């Protein structure tokens, strides 16, 4: 111990006098703003604790030459002292085993300056932050700042106190955990209650019937004989039960989407039995779409539902790979870590589709939060929605930016029901050549004898039980190990390696290690060959002290499982060394029908593959639909709606997200053509992103997201149909064309569906409205089937998250049933993409599509505290006809701008289309039977606001006919004037409207506000 102390050094970097301490300043501001605490000045310092033998000169050289910036920093060695005028402190360290990229980078630098190899997998350097506060705050206040602003108790070790009492340091010492033993768990003769308790105690998340099936499997004579031969006891090992629990988790197995559902519609009296939502509404629907596509010479649908991501053909050379997932539970307890591992984990799906080695093209993200301005009492274990928003945003920033993947599109939805569990949807598009070294890239082939290689990060206790934990409702006892910490740099190295390994033909195939860790990745791949042998003692660990089952199910991040033919091991190992990616041979595939797991030669699991993958009992669930009682409200009519429009533009769900968008790199790779914000001002919101595939052709892809949870309060069918239509029309708005309109046109579409619903399994005590919730899910699926059929658009992959409830202090917060449709479509020539903003004065403004009396669930009603009844409905046939014509009009270059109508209806769309350059518009609303407010604010689907050059008006009107309503013209004066029945009903300066929109609550919350605008110099 004494010797160890001698090799421990502390390096402290403080800013030189006069250097701007932005970090300290932000802490002071945030404490004042969010916690109402006056810290006085705050001074930040970086600390590095080095546990490595260094002499004085080496330490000093390392500190001053590698860590300190000579212009910015003063260095102090081996002293932890305050500074004059500062009375209290907060020290933020990491808990044992938590990823410390900064420490690892410092180790890299140390190895370079010493010019000696240094095992970077063992943590020798620990980074920390020290904050000195001017004011003498009591310990409780310091703890609040520490826990609510600076760290997360699950991840960080936080020390606070008065400087005069001495600054307490903390350096983690990981390891020292359990010995590597495997325990046997007896199921024989356990009562139902005991089985359930066992499931709950171990976070297996298996229900009684499933536990019984497990018990029966081990009790079967055949199993017992097999186990005897394999050298295992009759009773299952802890490792075996864990493998089954991960494999059978809702997260991995989608048991509710595969269940038999007895559905009753109390409105119509209809009763039916649904044999799997997935099969009935998703898989079969896509099969039908594929049949129609192929019948018309469109054979671009390559891979659906059977791999980590869906794949469609771009052209004869390459595939587009698309995957969207959620990471809700982890983001609820650690927003930053949950989001960063969400995006990095989702990146691994396209990366490890087929053989693996796709090039990532872009990310998208859609986030649902509670009201960030919530000022009530939080439940035990519940994080404030603002904190979740800021943490998730930062996680996506680091996950995307540090990986070099542009975040090109997204959405943020606010609703108080997301205050318990936020929804964090992460999407990634990628491009893969059709072939790698002569083999079809999208195929996963494995033969007995192929080696199992773990690549990338090491295994620790982080993320144990993520798959099962996300399959149950969240409560105040969420386990710390369920938190996963991301390391984008580790994944970037692994990604670069995978790209080269695939192109050199060294990979047979690959998959990612996500939920369930090796247990799931090897278990799934072993299904291809028919078995596998894994030798767990070979798995490299972050620190000692993991039991075999923990190694097998840990969800430590940034790992891939690779399948390599024995003859290619030498070459791939050399490439791994060159690119500094750790590769470990942990076993091989077999064809004997068993998953064999061993530790130090002794068997720890021997499971029949068929039982593992097919043995889970099917659920039978009850669903009952009753139309919610709803009525249209009486809203007093007004003669001037300028104020209403202004309020809508500044409202939480409509206001600008610029502060979020700009902190994501949306144009790395240099291929983003339609960005989230466009125009000379850089403040015109766009409907979908357009990204070109490369620099040699103008082919590209458009991507959009449709999500409308509040409509689900009126009818989940219409909500789902509307969300699908929203995503489709956003693609149409940027110049996309519907698929399959002409034979062999090759215009691919690829959709991911992501359902996030509250617990929908009926239980008279704990979930009395479960049947209604499940009925909503059924209706959402029915709408999805109808939408895909109507537009002939296939689903290629998707995910469902079934337990989005947060329970604490006897209160349950459940998300509204939510579905996100993430839609991608080929753009033949990105130069013909359309942006939403007005382009020139005197262009003629049209409304395309039909407006109906559909204010139900609208933002206009929400402004008045009402829900209403008339939820917008989609007429797919009319929508398809309109979208087809818009595509034709754009082919002829007739469209100058196009913006889809959504939240806030026509009025909000009119305002937004002026934001790009500062134009105005003069608009005359037609005199129809619809009330004025309905014309202005109805959110009827399948509508667009579009402009046409004066010289193209005749051709455009001939083509669109009565689907286009001429409203007026674009003006240069920057005034928006809307008239109706001879009266001016909206009159506003568009710069003022833009300021309201820009200075709305989201930008305000994140500290970006401006009185005029945030644009760059070439505006106006």
């Amino acid at each position, binding site marked *: 111990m004494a010797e160890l102390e001698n090799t421990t050094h502390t390096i402290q970097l403080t800013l030189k006098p006069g250097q701007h301490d*932005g970090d300290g*300043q932000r802490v002071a501001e945030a404490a004042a703003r969010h916690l109402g605490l006056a810290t006085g000045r705050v001074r930040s310092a970086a600390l590095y604790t080095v546990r490595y033998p260094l002499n004085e000169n080496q330490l000093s050289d390392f500190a001053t*030459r*590698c*860590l300190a*910036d*000579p*212009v*910015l920093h003063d260095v102090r060695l081996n002293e932890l002292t305050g500074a004059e005028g500062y009375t209290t402190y907060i020290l933020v360290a990491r808990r044992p085993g938590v990823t410390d990229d900064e420490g690892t*980078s410092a180790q*890299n*630098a140390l190895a*370079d300056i010493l010019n000696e190899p240094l095992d970077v997998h063992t943590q020798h350097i620990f*980074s920390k932050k020290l904050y000195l506060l001017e004011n003498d705050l009591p310990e409780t206040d310091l703890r609040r700042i520490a826990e609510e602003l600076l760290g997360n108790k699950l991840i960080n070790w936080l020390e606070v106190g008065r400087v005069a009492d001495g600054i307490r340091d903390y350096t983690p010492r990981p390891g020292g955990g359990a010995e590597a033993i495997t325990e046997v768990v007896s199921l024989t003769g356990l009562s139902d209650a005991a089985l359930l308790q066992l499931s709950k105690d171990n976070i297996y998340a298996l229900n009684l019937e499933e536990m019984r099936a497990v018990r029966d499997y081990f009790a079967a004579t055949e199993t017992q004989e097999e186990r005897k031969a394999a050298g295992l006891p009759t009773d299952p090992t802890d490792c075996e039960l864990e493998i089954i629990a991960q494999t059978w988790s809702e997260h991995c197995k989608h048991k509710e989407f595969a269940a038999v559902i007895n559905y009753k519609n109390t409105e119509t009296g209809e009763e039916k039995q649904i044999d799997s939502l997935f099969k009935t509404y998703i898989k079969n629907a896509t099969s039908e779409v594929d049949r129609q596509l192929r019948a018309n010479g469109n054979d671009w649908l390559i891979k659906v539902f059977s791999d980590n991501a869906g794949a469609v053909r*771009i*052209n004869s*050379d*390459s595939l587009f790979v698309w995957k969207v997932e959620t990471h809700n539970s982890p983001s609820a307890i650690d927003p930053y870590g949950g989001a960063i591992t969400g995006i990095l984990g989702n990146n691994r799906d396209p990366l490890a589709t087929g053989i693996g080695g796709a*090039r990532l093209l872009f990310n998208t993200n859609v986030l649902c939060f509670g009201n960030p301005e919530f000022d009530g009492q939080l439940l035990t274990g519940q994080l404030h929605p603002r904190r979740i928003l800021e943490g998730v945003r930062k996680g996506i920033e680091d996950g995307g*930016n*540090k990986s*070099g993947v542009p975040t090109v599109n997204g959405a943020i939805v606010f609703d108080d029901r997301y205050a318990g569990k936020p929804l964090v949807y992460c999407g990634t598009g990628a491009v893969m*050549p059709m072939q790698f070294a002569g083999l079809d890239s999208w195929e996963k082939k494995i033969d007995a004898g192929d080696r199992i290689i773990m690549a990338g990060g090491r295994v620790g206790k982080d993320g144990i039980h993520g798959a099962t934990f996300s399959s149950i409702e969240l409560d105040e006892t969420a386990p710390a190990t369920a938190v996963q910490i991301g390391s*984008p*740099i580790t994944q*970037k*190295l692994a990604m*670069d390696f995978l790209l*080269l390994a695939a*192109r050199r033909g060294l990979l047979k195939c690959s998959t990612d290690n996500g939920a369930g860790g090796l247990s799931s990745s090897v278990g799934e791949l072993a299904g291809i060959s028919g078995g596998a042998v894994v030798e767990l003692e070979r798995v490299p660990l972050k620190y000692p002290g993991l039991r075999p089952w923990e190694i097998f199910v840990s969800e430590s991040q940034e790992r891939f499982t690779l399948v390599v033919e024995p003859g290619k091991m030498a070459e791939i190992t050399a490439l791994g060394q*060159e*690119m500094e990616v750790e590769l470990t041979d942990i076993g091989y595939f077999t064809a004997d029908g068993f998953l064999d797991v061993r530790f130090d030669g002794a068997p720890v699991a021997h499971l029949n593959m068929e039982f593992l993958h097919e043995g889970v009992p099917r659920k039978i669930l009850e669903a009952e639909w009753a139309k919610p009682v709803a009525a249209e409200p009486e809203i007093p009519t007004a003669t001037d709606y300028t104020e209403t429009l202004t309020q809508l533009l500044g409202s939480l769900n409509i206001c600008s997200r610029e502060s979020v968008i*700009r*902190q994501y*790199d949306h144009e*790395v*790779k*240099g291929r983003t053509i339609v960005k989230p*914000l*466009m125009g*000379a001002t850089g403040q015109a919101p766009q409907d979908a992103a357009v990204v*070109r*595939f*490369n*620099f040699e*052709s103008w082919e590209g892809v458009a991507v959009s997201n449709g999500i409308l949870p509040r409509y689900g309060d009126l009818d989940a069918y219409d909500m789902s149909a509307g969300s699908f239509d929203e995503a489709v029309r956003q693609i149409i708005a940027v110049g996309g064309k519907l698929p399959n309109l002409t034979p062999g046109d090759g215009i691919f579409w690829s959709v991911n569906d992501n359902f996030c619903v509250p617990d929908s399994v009926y239980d008279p005590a704990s979930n009395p409205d479960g049947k209604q919730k499940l009925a909503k899910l059924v209706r959402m699926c029915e709408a999805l089937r109808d939408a895909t059929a109507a537009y002939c658009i296939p689903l290629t992959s998707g995910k469902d998250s079934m337990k989005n409830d947060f329970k604490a202090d006897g209160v349950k917060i459940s998300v509204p049933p939510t579905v996100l449709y993430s839609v991608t479509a080929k753009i033949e020539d*990105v130069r013909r*993409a*359309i*942006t939403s*903003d007005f*382009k*020139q004065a005197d262009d003629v403004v049209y409304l395309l599509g039909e407006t109906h009396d559909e204010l139900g669930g609208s933002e206009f009603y929400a402004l008045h505290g009402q829900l209403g009844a008339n939820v917008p409905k989609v007429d797919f046939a009319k929508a398809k006809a309109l979208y087809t014509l818009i595509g034709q009009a754009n082919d002829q270059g007739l469209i100058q*701008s196009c913006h889809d109508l959504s939240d806030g209806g026509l009025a909000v769309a009119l305002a937004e289309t002026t934001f*790009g*350059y500062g134009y105005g518009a003069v608009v005359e609303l037609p005199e129809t039977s619809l009330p004025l407010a309905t014309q202005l604010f109805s959110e009827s689907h399948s509508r667009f606001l579009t402009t046409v050059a004066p010289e193209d008006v005749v051709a455009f009107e001939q083509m669109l006919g009565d689907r286009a309503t001429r409203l007026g013209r674009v003006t240069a004066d920057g005034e928006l004037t809307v008239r109706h029945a001879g009266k001016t009903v909206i009159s506003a300066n568009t710069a003022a409207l833009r300021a309201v929109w820009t200075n709305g609550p989201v930008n305000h919350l994140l500290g970006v506000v401006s009185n005029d605008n945030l644009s*760059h*110099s*070439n*505006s106006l």
Partner: protein
Amino acid sequence: MVQDSAQGAHKVQSEAQTDAANVDGTVRALILTGFGINCEEEFAAAYRLAGAEATIVHLNQVLYGQVSIHDFDVLNFPGGFSFGDDLGSGVVLANKLRYRQTSADGRTLLDDIKQFIANGKFVLGICNGFQVLVKLGLLPNMGGDVTPEVTLTHNASGRYEDRWVTLRVNPASRTPFLKGIDKLEVPVRHGEGRLVVPDDATRAAIEAAGLNCLSYIDANGDGTSEYPLNPNGADLNCAGLTDPTGQVFGLMPHPEAFLAAYNHPDWARRRRQNPQATEEGEGLQIFKNIVAHIAQKHTTAAPAVQLANQH
């Protein structure tokens, strides 16, 4: 063609050019990647579009001697987050180039880069690459001894931001990279782009030599410290630096992200105004400039390149 073009650019050592020097007159650009660098593909595309041959190489292939920088005309450090930027942008990579010995005689890659520059060749760093050059002391390198004289650190806003800015080229700048360019619109995408000059004397020296080659400007064309026109609060409103020879050039914004007119946020309106305008992005000119400059050197003074090796 989607994948192959990029793949073609990613030549590995075995495929990389190993000919001694440009006998065929081709301009050869070496683009480093690995360890978190992430703008190498568009960087390579920029050189290809400018008529050069672009080779992307993993840093370790250079450090381990499998690829020699001396086989190339211009050495490029792309943007990204090298080593996660955990110790400050570019710090760990700069440290590696300065200290990691690449041969038994204690030679480092920085030694090679110094020789490369002495040979009359060119070095370009963008964003994270600029940060590396500054932290290495290659920019501005007024003392000529590769000692860091300035630094780049956290934006005054405290935030990473992606936004477009307008730059003006310092007329006093003599670097061939910026020849003939007056103004330039480009995106910035960084969290640590604020140039900090430690004292007035250094500031004056930089200005006197015209090394502050690019400034953030306002609508009137004047250098500005006003956010967000100056997105990071840089000293001297400075977005880029050269060394006194003009051979080493670095900038925070991303010209390689503006290779096509359609990268600009206002492209659709601008093309409406002027449908015949070039489809090239303004950022490409920097690459065309240096490629043309080197090509001209190749044709007029090929033997001199060899003689210039005074190291």
